[in-house]
């Protein structure tokens, strides 16, 4: 199982998403979520959305270790 976090506008689409999920890559998580939550799936497929694992930006095909923290990040707007 890996733990899921959704930030910014993605959070608005993820209210009913479970806190953790069984998956081997972020890309697979995205497919699993798109099946149950199509609006969230569409958002996650936006090309500007980044994914991090344990607080490091990674590729969508990164292999996930058990207990990882996987976060979905829309474009940031700090400052």
């Amino acid at each position: 199982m890996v733990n899921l976090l959704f930030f910014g506008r993605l959070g608005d689409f993820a209210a009913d998403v479970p806190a953790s999920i069984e998956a081997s890559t972020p890309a697979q998580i995205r497919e699993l979520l798109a099946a149950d939550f199509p609006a969230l799936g569409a958002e996650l497929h936006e090309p500007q959305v980044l994914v991090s694992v344990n607080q490091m930006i990674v590729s969508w095909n990164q292999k996930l270790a058990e207990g990882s923290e996987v976060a979905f990040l829309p474009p940031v707007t700090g400052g």
Partner: protein
Amino acid sequence: MNSLRIQAEDFDLAAEYQSLRQLSLAVGAVVTFTGLVRDFEGQGSIDSLSLQHYPGMTEKLLQEIVDQANSRWNLLGTSVIHRVGKLLPCDQIVFVGVASQHRADAFEAAQFVMDYLKTKATFWKKVEQDGQQYWVESKDSDQAASQRWANDD
């Protein structure tokens, strides 16, 4: 001295300035930047701005940004404060203060840190206006400002 804080509370620019100024006898220049919640141009005035961040990751990214600034410029101290939570028009959002011997270092480092904060640090902003809420999109001009420093390498 490098001080990094992410906090809901307001901050006191004067206190930050005095800390930077008194770091050493070698301090000849202090540059401060303060970002404030303003009315959004062409869209009327907002009711509030809510700042969300990714705890843990944000601190790590800010530390990286400040480390980069210290390796690029000759700095005597930096102070970065970013507020989170709900803010009102005219509230202070962000502070960057830099102390150095010579003014060019302080000016460039403060601008560099702000450009990176705008485009690389894990903050998101939601605006409330006329009973509606919307997330702020990042601006192309901010991306360009940040890119400038990469081109310098």
